[in-house]
């Protein structure tokens, strides 16, 4: 490559770096905005706060949902255990869980960069871009700064995979044990980590079948003992609440929609990642990254089609794609391929020269494909400069914040979040809490945050009750009785995920008399219907 060619390469690399740093800046602004918000942003966050509060009192959150407060968690406990010490100092709150999520996403970014640097011919610049590319993903942006286990599990998975990549081929026992420990932590952070565990053991089996079987035995034993302990300690509720209740219907259109979106947004990195998989399959050895990528893209993508699932299920595949594409680009630039008859047939030197322009161009294309940003306030000038306008809308209010999301909000399962919260959202949350404080009776709220802020019991977990009901594990007689006898001073609904007979009882015994708009959603406030005669015996 000529000197002017190198100059163009560096200029393009600089542009790609600036573009991806801008994405990281938007992500940080979004995280800071969410951390300051004391109520639910994504549906279900409040229940994870409640799980953390219970664990901080050394109580498991896997409870019998037939008795008051009809609450149970459906997630493994590790993420909430990590957040539990904060409860001792600050009480139940959202900010530290969101901060942990944000920190976990940064850790993944660093782990990706380290893997690309180590396994991709020590190209610092590509390693940096690969790490930033992860933070630029719309899916990561969505789930990173939430009080949810979605991103923490990917952090444990990424750590496990990157540690294993080096430790297993070298027979480094300490490294292998540490990696398997991370994998176990991932499994007890979120059940979905089973896919990464499967990928890791497949790869270990390819590299050393006997050692892989030994590792699988030890891992299975440790994981099984924890499972057994949780089930015994919770009186069998762990099995019912975290396993049985997590089996949901498969929605084909949702799976296909999310797959298309995943490819549309990340295609600039997915194609190079897939090419490296092909190279490894036919002209080199399969790396753990390739198996991780294939497993999490295939099985994770299919899992994303289940009811209640979403784009977060594909985040591990994005981490794998960032690593694979980074290594692929580094090898192309260095023209450093394992000697192979298949590769020798290709004009590798010419490809290396071409890649000086192609690689930064692909990162630039990726930055544009994953662009999401506020279009008002401090970002208005940048939005105008980039020629982007608000393209997503809540439809129900005029003063909504302007937000551009290249993903749009068309695919089912893609969470309609990402915009910045305003003072109006804070005020609306305080208004709902004020309504709770007006009654002395228990309050049944579909989002736990209001009850937590008012210092009241968290009553029910609607999606959990729905899932248990569909699995034939929830009758809800006591809950229906309490609703019929108007023992709740107020019912707050958002998505109305409760089982049909619970919603029907609410509709009979309570009357909807106020709607408060917060955070893109209408919160329906239901008060006891005057002169109502209960339809069930006390």
């Amino acid at each position: 490559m000529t000197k002017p060619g190198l100059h163009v390469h560096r200029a393009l690399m600089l542009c790609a770096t600036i573009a991806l740093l801008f994405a990281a800046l938007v992500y940080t602004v979004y995280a800071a905005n969410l951390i300051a918000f004391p109520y639910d942003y994504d549906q279900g966050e409040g229940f994870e706060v409640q799980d953390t509060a219970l664990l901080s009192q050394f109580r498991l959150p896997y409870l019998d949902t037939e008795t008051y407060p009809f609450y149970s968690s459906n997630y493994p406990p590790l993420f909430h255990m990590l957040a539990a010490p904060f409860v001792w100092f600050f009480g139940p709150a959202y900010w530290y869980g969101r901060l942990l999520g944000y920190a976990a996403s940064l850790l993944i970014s660093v782990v990706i960069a380290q893997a690309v640097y180590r396994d991709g011919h020590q190209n610092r610049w590509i390693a940096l871009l690969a790490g930033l590319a992860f933070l630029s993903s719309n899916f990561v942006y969505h789930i990173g700064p939430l009080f949810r286990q979605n991103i923490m599990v990917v952090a444990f998975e990424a750590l496990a995979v990157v540690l294993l990549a080096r430790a297993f081929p070298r027979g480094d026992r300490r490294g292998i044990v540490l990696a398997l420990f991370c994998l176990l932590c991932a499994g007890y952070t979120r059940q979905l980590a089973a896919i990464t565990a499967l990928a890791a053991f497949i790869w270990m089996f390819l590299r050393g079948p006997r050692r892989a079987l030994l590792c699988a035995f030890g891992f299975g034993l440790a994981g099984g003992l924890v499972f057994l302990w949780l089930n015994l300690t919770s009186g069998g509720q762990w099995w019912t609440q975290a396993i049985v209740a997590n089996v949901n219907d498969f929605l084909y259109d949702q799976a296909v929609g999310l797959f298309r979106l995943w490819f549309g947004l990340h295609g600039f990195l997915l194609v190079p990642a897939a090419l490296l998989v092909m190279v490894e399959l036919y002209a080199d050895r399969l790396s753990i990254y390739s198996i991780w990528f294939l497993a999490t893209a295939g099985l994770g993508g299919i899992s994303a089609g289940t009811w209640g699932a979403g784009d977060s299920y594909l985040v591990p595949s994005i981490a794998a794609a960032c690593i694979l594409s980074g290594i692929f680009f580094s090898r192309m630039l260095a023209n450093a391929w394992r000697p192979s008859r298949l590769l020798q047939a290709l004009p590798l030197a010419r490809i290396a020269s071409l890649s000086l322009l192609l690689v930064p161009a692909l990162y630039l294309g990726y930055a544009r494909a994953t662009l999401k940003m506020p279009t008002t306030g401090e970002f208005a000038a940048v939005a105008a400069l980039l020629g982007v306008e608000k393209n997503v809308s809540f439809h129900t209010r005029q003063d909504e914040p302007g937000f551009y999301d290249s993903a749009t909000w068309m695919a089912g399962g893609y969470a309609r979040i990402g915009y910045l919260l305003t003072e109006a959202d804070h005020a609306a949350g305080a208004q709902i809490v004020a309504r709770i404080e007006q009654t002395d009776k228990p309050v049944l709220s579909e989002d736990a945050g209001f009850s937590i802020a008012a210092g009241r019991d968290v009553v029910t977990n609607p999606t959990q009750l729905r899932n248990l009901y569909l699995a034939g594990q929830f009758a809800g007689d006591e809950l229906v009785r309490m609703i019929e006898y108007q023992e709740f001073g107020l019912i707050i609904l958002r998505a109305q995920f409760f089982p049909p007979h619970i919603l029907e009882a609410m509709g009979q015994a309570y009357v909807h008399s106020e709607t408060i708009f917060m955070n893109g959603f209408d919160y329906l406030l239901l008060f006891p219907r005057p002169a109502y005669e209960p339809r069930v015996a006390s």
Partner: protein
Amino acid sequence: MVILGRQRFTVWAAESILRGMDAESAGITKRQLGLLLLVGGLVGFCAILAVDIVDVGREGGIGPAQTVALIAMALAALVGLSLLPLGDAPA
């Protein structure tokens, strides 16, 4: 004749895979991986088709999810087939 051929194939496949497991440090070869994918893909393909035969009460025939699974299994078998000529190179 067909049965004998199938037995020979099974013995050859089992020996190929077990040989890889016996080795202390050597991993699975491309040929062994190819075999695993080929056999897995074919068995999976037949099993998915068999869902309709076993569960005769099902309505609607082969659904979209089943079609995707069939394509995935066929693809796995084809990839497996393409790996067979690569011999003892490590997978």
